[in-house]
């Protein structure tokens, strides 16, 4: 088992770097709030970043169960369909999509 000092050092590194990555940009951007480029990026980024997170997490789910690619794609379609057709209730859409995937993976 690794020494307590090593574990503590790992915790300090994870804490310091993660917090700095999250905090420093706020401090930098505060001085650039009026810049046109920063305001444009603030508007343009969310939809793209969320899309990228959706795709990479889909790949993560597929990598965990490689034979389930088709099920995962089907479950994504179900999630999006439920969301668009039944009033954009996030919990409902995520719940149904996940249930479909879990059932497909475990029962088929």
């Amino acid at each position: 088992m690794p020494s307590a000092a090593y574990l503590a050092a790992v915790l300090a590194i994870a804490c310091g770097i993660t917090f700095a990555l999250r905090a420093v940009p706020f401090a930098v951007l505060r001085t650039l709030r009026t810049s046109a480029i920063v305001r444009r990026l603030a508007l343009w980024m969310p939809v793209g970043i969320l899309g990228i997170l959706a795709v990479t997490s889909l790949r993560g789910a597929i990598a965990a169960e490689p034979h389930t690619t088709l099920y995962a794609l089907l479950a994504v379609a179900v999630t999006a369909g439920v969301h668009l057709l039944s009033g954009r209730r996030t919990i409902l859409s995520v719940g149904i999509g996940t249930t479909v995937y879990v059932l497909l993976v475990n029962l088929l």
Partner: protein
Amino acid sequence: MQTDISPQIAAPAPSPAPVTRRQQIAAGVRDSFSAGLGIFPLGIALGLLVLQAGLPAWFAPALSVAAFAGSMELLLVGMVAAATPLAAVALTVLVVNFRHVFYAFSFPLHLVRGRLAKTYSVYAMIDEAYAVSASLPESQRSAPRLLAMQIASQAYWVGGGLVGVAVGSALPAPVKGLEFSLCALFTVLTLDAFRSREDIPSVVLAGASVTLALVLTPPIALFTALLLFVALLLARHALIARRAAAGRGSTGRHAAPRTASHVATTETASRATTETASRAMTETASRAATETVDA
């Protein structure tokens, strides 16, 4: 900008903007449920992994408090068990969590008042917190809602880790496939973000970035995709700025004033104002339209 009104009209309206502090907190906790569906099982997985790696049980909660960042923690457990040098640990944390650098652009930290609350909100700015708040219309956001969502999410994560180490291997085989809920959540939030701002170029650029990243650097696809995406957005900004400059030149030759202010002020200034104003108006109008549908 068109808003996709048709599918929603018949559908039940999503919740109106919460007014009282209590309602805002309740809305925040509700926001956290769909994220929790993925976070809690992942927390259990972290606890199990810590035990399997032969690490002390306290390391699971300690890790999820020291750094609230799910995917990185799962990765760290394996590295720590293999006694990876600290420099390599630091580099991994840097690369895996680098994406958070970009969240500051759109994360509504300005809503949160007070040093302690601000610090916590930044510390707990996980993907899910960014995703939920960035896809929410401006009128729906508030500090209590955001903080309640973040605190609840961390409770699921730390709680899951504790359950994992407590139950250990006594746990029956965990349900397979629950990790898909994270993907479902991001899919849904992408759709919502697209509705509040129908920005097709951003979607196309993000699609190109993630495709390239998955092909070129599969192990760090998220890292590469975000860097590419931001680079492409900077190029898009440069293109728009150049086009605006070119447009300014041509209106100079034609000298055809479109508005009264065009005549009154110097050309550069008025051009800029008109553009900003019309852009702001389109945005306000489309947002208003979207929110009318919501109400």
